[in-house]
């Protein structure tokens, strides 16, 4: 599978996760969201950018519980809770936000 953004083709796996996270650029996230009928707001970007930083530091995509806690630490309690994150990413913050961020599917996520 693949996704075309600005005339460039990006390889993805069968679930739509980017094959090479180094190829990622912000427009890829926008295009992935659009395909699923979503428009990315600053609140979405805050989570996406957080995930990219997390991956850069730890080389994994965090499990949802870990993401929620880490977001709470960095961005405050009002954002570090499941309700807030599920409202932004209804298919699951780790699954959907990780995909937009170009990361692999979180370990332990089925």
């Amino acid at each position: 599978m693949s996704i075309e953004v600005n005339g460039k083709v990006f390889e993805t796996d069968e679930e739509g996760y980017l094959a090479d996270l180094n190829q990622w650029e912000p427009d890829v996230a926008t295009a992935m969201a659009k395909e699923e009928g979503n428009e990315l707001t600053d609140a979405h970007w805050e989570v996406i950018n957080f995930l990219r930083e997390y991956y850069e530091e730890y080389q994994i995509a965090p499990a949802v519980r870990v993401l929620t806690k880490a977001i709470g630490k960095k961005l405050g309690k009002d954002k570090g809770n499941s309700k807030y994150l599920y409202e932004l990413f209804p298919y699951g913050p780790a699954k959907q936000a990780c995909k937009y961020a170009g990361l692999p599917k979180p370990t332990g996520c089925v």
Partner: protein
Amino acid sequence: MSEPWEDDELDGPVRKFMYVNRRAPYGTIYALESLEVVLIAAAFEQDVTLVFMDDGVYQIKKDQNTDAIGVKNFSPTYRALEGYDVEKLYVEKESLESRGLTTDDLVVPVQVVNNDQLAELMEEQEVILSF
């Protein structure tokens, strides 16, 4: 029906799992596989203990560089364990010392234990997995 964000709390039983890591980080898949199952167990909120002994102590050695062997350096991931509430990390004393290492050479804080202490820790576990 519950909302997805209300499913966070897992109700299953919590078991005491110990993962014993005894091999060098690269050359076989054991170290990476162990780390993956540790993360999964932790994501399911199990009581996880890690032991590094024999060549397994190299798994958490600082300054790993895997460029020449063309595989991913996954040592930064051990530093994510704290965020997964995995904080019981033990290193077997003789394994560390015989390799000329100290805890300063490791990417994560650990407790150094001797064989007797390790045996006691093992006694406390419900499940022990050796990699």
